[in-house]
């Protein structure tokens, strides 16, 4: 079977606009993501995680190498690859329901079908009753739920998530992680999820990809052989297998932080 996403010898170099230095963010990064797989990408800050995700999204062109989705090279953004950004990227002048339906609106889906999709995803994401609210009336966690629902509703082949839960409080983050886990199980979407949080990476990933820092490349791929159904925060914190996995990934990331001699 061919990979859903194939990253081949990816390299990216850019000029830092402030220091005017050339930065090699990624170098020779090769990675396959299987259809329906949930791959988490973890690494210290400055390892090029977000660069990788933006290249996959088609928002920046790589300087070397290629990215294939379903065997076709990525040349720009497209609705086959939905993105959930780290910052709040839902439109503040649209209500919850109009934000969620935005992708479908762009695709030209008729109003009746859009309304049905909104109902479904509002339910799935736990926002029933908030359809008419504007983003500023919602908490940070709820806003990210809307962003996830908007991406899901557009029904992309692949979901790319860039530290989507980094700016919500710890309690909400756990809830969102459990919800995303349930969504992944229900939709069987191919998901590439970037994070600097090792616990999050192990909790969510079918495999966990540890990136080496500067230039970013694959340091290790750690399979997490724990069924989705068993992935609840309660079990996660009590199961020794989970604990061992987390320690292993954490050790790999720590090597990069210490070995890199940077800010971590």
């Amino acid at each position, binding site marked *: 079977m061919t990979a859903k996403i194939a990253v081949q010898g990816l390299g990216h170099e850019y000029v830092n606009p402030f220091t005017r230095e050339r930065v090699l963010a990624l170098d020779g990064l090769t990675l396959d993501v299987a259809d329906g797989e949930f791959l988490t990408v973890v690494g210290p800050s400055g390892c090029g995680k977000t660069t990788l995700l933006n290249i996959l999204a088609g928002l920046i062109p790589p300087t070397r190498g290629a990215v294939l989705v379903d065997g076709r090279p990525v040349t720009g*953004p*497209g609705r086959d690859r939905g993105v959930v950004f780290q910052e709040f990227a839902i439109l503040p*002048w649209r209500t919850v329901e109009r934000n969620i339906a935005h*992708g479908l609106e*762009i695709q030209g889906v008729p109003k009746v079908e859009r309304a049905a999709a909104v109902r479904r995803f509002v339910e799935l994401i736990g926002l029933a009753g908030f359809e008419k609210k504007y983003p500023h009336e919602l908490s940070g966690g709820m806003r990210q739920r809307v962003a996830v629902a908007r991406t899901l509703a557009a029904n992309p082949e692949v979901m790319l998530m860039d530290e989507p839960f980094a700016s919500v409080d710890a309690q909400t983050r756990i809830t969102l992680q459990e919800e995303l886990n349930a969504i992944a199980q229900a939709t069987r979407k191919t998901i590439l999820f970037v994070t600097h949080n090792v616990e999050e990476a192990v909790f969510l990933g079918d495999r966990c990809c540890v990136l080496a820092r500067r230039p970013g490349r694959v340091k290790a791929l750690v399979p997490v052989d724990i069924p989705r159904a068993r992935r609840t925060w309660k079990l996660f914190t009590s199961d020794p297998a989970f604990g061992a996995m987390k320690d292993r990934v954490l050790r790999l990331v720590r090597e990069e932080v210490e070995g890199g001699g940077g800010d971590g």
Partner: protein
Amino acid sequence: MTPHREAVVSWVVVLAAAVAAWGLAAATLPLPEYYLPPPTAVLAALGDLVAKGILPTYVAESLRRMLLAALLGLAVGVPAGLLLGMSRRVADFFYPLLNFFQSVSGIAWLPLLLVWFGFGERTILVAVNYTVLFPVIFNALLGVRSVPPIYVNALRTLGAPRWRIVRDVLVPGALPSIATGMRLGLAYGWRALIAAEMLVGAHGLGSAS
């Protein structure tokens, strides 16, 4: 009392106090009347202008010129600003130029405008439309540039074509700034209009003296 009525009442009180202070100063200060006419004289002159039908005509004249400038600002200034704001490089190029022209009021150009267009309607219209147009263009451009790029990227990843990004992100995102531009443009434009009418002496509020 509702907050709105409260504001109206305090506004009337302040106005009455100011007129009273003016009247008191005119009555007690040892100045000739042409130096500081009392409120009663001004009121009489106002009554006279209204009775002769001059003031209503002049007000209508001025409002017509203002309305024309406002429409031009909306129809030309807003689209021009939006268009120039779409590309960062184009915006960077025009920014200092637009900032210069929006800072130099039409009043400052009046001596030159009089030489170019003479003592007539054309000078007034050029001065007013110029004064309205530049803040409108400038702020529409700023509005587009201030839309967070993440909104544009979010729409691109949803598969939105260019026109869709303009309609759904750039225009609504620039709207508050466009409103500011219109407000400033009309405020500056009104002053330029009165000044131009005073100098040119054509019909209009500025010449009603």
